């Protein structure tokens, strides 16, 4: 298969194949029709030829009868011998009309026919003159005419002209027979060749379709297989995280619980150092519990079925800020909230995104004398919307920007700002699942801006 053809999509190749089949059917039809028309025309001409020959023979016969009849009359004076002559004189106009009808489209034959008519007229006129002379002047006056015949010479010419006409017609019949035969052969050969060509074309189209379907089936089977593998892997992961959530928490609870019981029973007798150790054991257990919980939430974010509805981000941000205010305990933050669009997505997940971004902003502006947080959106020509959350908080070094969205990645020490470092990882995962992107800008002590792009139209 040539390169350009294999670059065509299957639909175009199949269409091209069918187009060629159609074109060959069309060509064969046109040629066959033309050949058949020629044959029909020839057979019509043949009929005419036979009629003409028949007519010529009848006239010839009638002329011969008239000539011999008139001679007998000249000798005997018996008028009954004139019947043949009278008949042909009467019939001559009919014959003439018939002739003209038959040779209407044949100029060559028409000339011969005109000549023949003149000869016949001459012959009949001479005969009529002799008959008249016999009737007026008696048998003796025409005796010299009766024996050799007055119109013998004209009759000979007539015989010759008729013979010529006949042979011309016979020749053209033969030519037409030859033409019809070769045209029939051509048609049969063309039909055979056409059928073969169509068979080849249809065969290759079948091959193309068959090949394509087989390839598609193989891909579908492979997809199904991978889907099953993925499902199995997902199930395993689910079982794993279930086990983590159930089994890993129990020992942590025990560590914290027994540390607390120990501190309660032996607390008064322990010195400060020992009490601090106990406290550290308990704090570590709590922290690990928090990490496990965060990791489970993160893992659930990736597996959870996404709800498909429309989310009004204006309203969402308002409720999130309202909920955060409860935890602010009087901290004064100035908010600037631009107009935000409605986007397709999962309301709970997007709520989680804004919860994380806004609580981060609140957390990292806590040390500022005048905390300011701005939320806004810009519509992109690509049909996406870019939403940003900007704060004037402690910011971050752009050198570590790639670490920001990683799981359990933190740019601050625990004693500066608390948190496990899962929030932005969750943000990125949720936005990715919505078909969007996340990125950030910032500078130390000059605040940070977190961006996310979201498609405004639902992706399939």
């Amino acid at each position, binding site marked *: 298969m040539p390169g350009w053809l294999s670059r065509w999509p299957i639909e175009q190749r199949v269409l091209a194949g069918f187009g060629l089949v159609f074109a060959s059917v069309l060509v064969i039809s046109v040629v066959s029709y033309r050949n058949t028309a020629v044959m029909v025309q020839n057979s019509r001409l043949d009929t005419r030829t036979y009629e003409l020959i028949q007519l010529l023979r009848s006239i010839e016969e009638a002329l011969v009868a008239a000539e011999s009849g008139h001679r007998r009359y000249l000798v005997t004076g018996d008028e009954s011998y004139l019947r043949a002559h009278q008949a042909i004189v009467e019939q001559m106009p009919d014959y003439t009309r018939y002739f003209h009808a038959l040779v209407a489209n044949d100029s060559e034959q028409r000339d011969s026919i005109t000549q023949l008519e003149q000869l016949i007229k001459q012959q009949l006129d001479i005969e009529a003159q002799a008959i008249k002379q016999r009737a007026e002047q008696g048998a003796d006056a025409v005796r010299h005419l009766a024996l050799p015949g007055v119109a013998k010479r004209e009759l000979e010419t007539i015989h010759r002209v008729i013979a010529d006409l006949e042979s011309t017609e016979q020749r053209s019949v033969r030519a037409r027979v030859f033409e019809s035969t070769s045209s029939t052969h051509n048609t049969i050969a063309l039909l055979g060749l056409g059928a073969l060509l169509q068979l080849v074309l249809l065969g290759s189209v079948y091959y193309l379709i068959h090949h394509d379907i087989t390839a598609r089936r193989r891909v579908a089977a492979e997809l199904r297989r991978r889907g099953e593998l993925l499902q199995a892997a997902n199930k395993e992961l689910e079982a794993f995280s279930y086990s983590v*959530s*159930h089994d890993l*928490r*129990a020992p942590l*609870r*025990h560590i914290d619980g*027994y*540390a*607390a*019981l120990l501190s309660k029973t032996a607390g008064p007798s322990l010195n400060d150092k020992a009490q601090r150790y106990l406290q550290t054991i308990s704090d570590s257990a709590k922290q690990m519990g928090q990490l496990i919980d965060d990791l489970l939430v993160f893992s659930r974010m990736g597996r959870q079925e996404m709800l498909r509805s429309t989310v009004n981000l204006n309203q969402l941000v308002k409720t999130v800020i309202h909920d955060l205010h409860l935890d602010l305990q009087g901290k004064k933050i100035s908010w600037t909230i631009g107009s935000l669009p409605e986007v397709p997505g999962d309301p709970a997940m997007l709520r989680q995104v804004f919860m994380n971004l806004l609580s981060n902003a609140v957390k990292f502006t806590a040390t500022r004398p005048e905390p300011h947080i701005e939320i806004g959106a810009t519509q992109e020509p690509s049909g996406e919307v870019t939403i940003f959350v900007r704060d004037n908080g402690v910011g971050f070094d752009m050198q570590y920007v790639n670490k920001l969205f990683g799981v359990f990645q933190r740019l601050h020490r625990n004693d500066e700002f608390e948190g496990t470092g899962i929030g932005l990882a969750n943000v990125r995962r949720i936005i990715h699942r919505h078909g969007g992107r996340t990125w950030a800008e910032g500078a130390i002590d000059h605040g940070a801006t977190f961006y996310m792009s979201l498609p405004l139209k639902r992706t399939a």
Partner: protein
Amino acid sequence: MTTVKPILLAEDNPRDAELALAAMEEHHIADKVVVCHDGAEVLDYLYCRGLYKSRECGNPAVVFLDLKMPKVDGIEVLRTIKNDTNLKPIPVVMLTSSREERDLAQSYALGANAYVVKPVEFQQFISAVKELGVFWGVINEPPPEGTESAA
């Protein structure tokens, strides 16, 4: 409020059981607690058979049920309780480490009266167990005996 009905705690992990008892002790309700170590034992207790053949029969004030237990798991025990007209009135509180949605959904679908996730933090655990014990074992008025079919 002076009910003598016991609180049945189904907990396979002895440490968890001890911590739960320690929590209840703070409110002096620990002596009312009967601890079972697996689902089969819970059913033995409820049906007064096996180890509990000789106990004075009667439904407990509440059953605290762990989900993951040897032999018969919590879901199976819950199903048995809620399918038995005699045991059906007993309040059942799921007390478990699992926060999984399907566990929650399944428990409530089978008729659990409450679902509590055991907090990792001991202080929270203590207060949770204490509140549960006090509410279901002391404050809550249990259904009267012998009204099984009406309940």
